[in-house]
C-alpha cells in the first residue's frame, strides 16, 4: 500500500525534526538544528533495512517516490511565495553569493581530483554508462 511508504516518510521527518529540536535545546538554542538532514539519513537507513529484508514492495516505494518526484514543483510554489520585492533591495548579495561560490568551487576541482592517471576509469566500480 502506497500509504505505508508515505507513512515511513512522514515518520522519518517527524523523528528528524524532533531530534533537531532536542539538539537545539541541548545547545541552548530554541531552533531545529539539522532536522531535515537527520530525517534524510533515517529514511536512507530505514528503507535500506526494508529493502534487504525484501519488505519494500513497489506500492510502498510509490508512496515515497511521488513526493520525491513532486519536489521541484513544490520548490516552484515555495519560490512563488517568498518576499521577492524586499529581497530585490539586496539583490546584488544574491548575485555575489551565487557567482563567487561557483567560481571558487570550479577552481577547487583540480586540487581535489589531483593529477589524472591511468586509474581514472577504476572509479566507476563496474558502472557502465
Amino acid at each position, binding site marked *: 500500500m502506497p500509504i505505508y511508504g508515505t507513512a515511513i516518510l512522514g515518520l522519518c521527518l517527524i523523528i528528524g525534526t524532533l531530534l533537531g529540536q532536542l539538539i537545539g535545546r541541548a545547545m541552548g538554542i530554541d531552533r531545529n*538544528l539539522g532536522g*531535515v538532514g537527520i530525517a534524510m539519513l533515517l529514511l536512507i537507513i530505514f528503507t535500506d533495512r526494508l529493502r534487504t529484508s525484501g519488505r519494500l514492495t513497489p506500492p510502498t516505494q510509490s508512496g515515497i517516490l511521488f513526493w520525491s518526484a513532486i519536489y521541484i514543483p513544490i520548490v516552484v510554489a515555495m*519560490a512563488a511565495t517568498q*518576499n*521577492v520585492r524586499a529581497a530585490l533591495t539586496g539583490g546584488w*548579495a544574491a548575485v555575489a*553569493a*551565487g557567482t563567487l561560490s561557483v567560481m571558487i568551487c570550479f577552481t577547487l576541482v583540480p586540487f*581535489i581530483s589531483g593529477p*589524472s592517471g591511468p586509474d581514472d576509469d577504476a572509479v566507476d566500480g563496474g558502472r557502465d554508462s
Partner: protein
Amino acid sequence: MSEILQVLEATATKYSLVTAFAAVGCVVWISYWTAEHLTRGRMHGSAIAIMIGLLLAWIGGTVTDGKRGLADIEFLAGFGIMGGAMLRDLAIVATAFGVRLDEFVKTGVRGIVSLLAGVLVSFMIGAIVAWSFGYRDAVSMATLGGGAATYIVGPVTGSALGASSDIIALSVAAGLIKSILVMTLTPFVAGYIGLNNPRSALIFGGLMGTTSGVAGGLAATDERLVPYGAMTATFYTGLGCLLGPSVVFLLIQTAVG
C-alpha cells in the same frame, strides 16, 4: 461573463491547494517546453520554473503589497500550503530515497572530501557576502550561506533558524544563480579544470552540489559523466541541510558573537 468569473474565483478559493497544483503544473510545463525548444536543453527546465516562481512572487507582492508573494492573492493562497515548510521538507526528505549507502562508500575519500569542501566553502562565501552587504546576524549569514550551497539548503536553513522571508528569498535567488551558472559555464571551463573523466566528475558533483546545475552542465560537456556527478551531488543537499542549521550556524554564531 463576470458571473462565471465570480464562480470560478469562489471555487478556486475554496479548493486553493488544488488550484495551486494546477497552476504550478502549468508553470512547470511551460518551463520544460521552453528549456527544450528555446534553449535546446542548455538550461534545465527546473531552473526556468523556479525563475518564473520568483517572478510570480514579485508580481504577487506588487499587486497586493504583501510579503508572501502569490499566496497573498486570495484564490492563490494554496501556493502557501504547497510551498510551505511542511510539504517542502517532506518532499526534500523523499529525494534521499533510493540513495544507497554502499554507492556512497564507493565514491571514496575524495568524494567525501569534495562534499565537505563544497558545502563548507559555499556556506563560508555566502556568509561573508551576507556580512559585507550588512546582514550581520548569524541567522541571516547562515541562510545566505545555505543559498550559496543550493536553493534548497538556503530555505531549509533559514526556516529552521527563523530567518525573515526576504533573506530566504535572497538565498533562493543565490542558489538559482549558482545553478544557472553551473549549467551554462561548465562546458567552457571543463578543459581548464580537468573535467574529462569519471573521477573528476564525481568530485565536481560533490563540490558544486546543485543537482540540476551539475546534471545540466555535465550533459552539455559530456553526457557519459552525468551519473558520476549526479551521484555525489545528491548527497550535497542532505549534507547541507544537516550541517547548515547546526554546525555551520553555531560556528558563524561564535564568529560574529
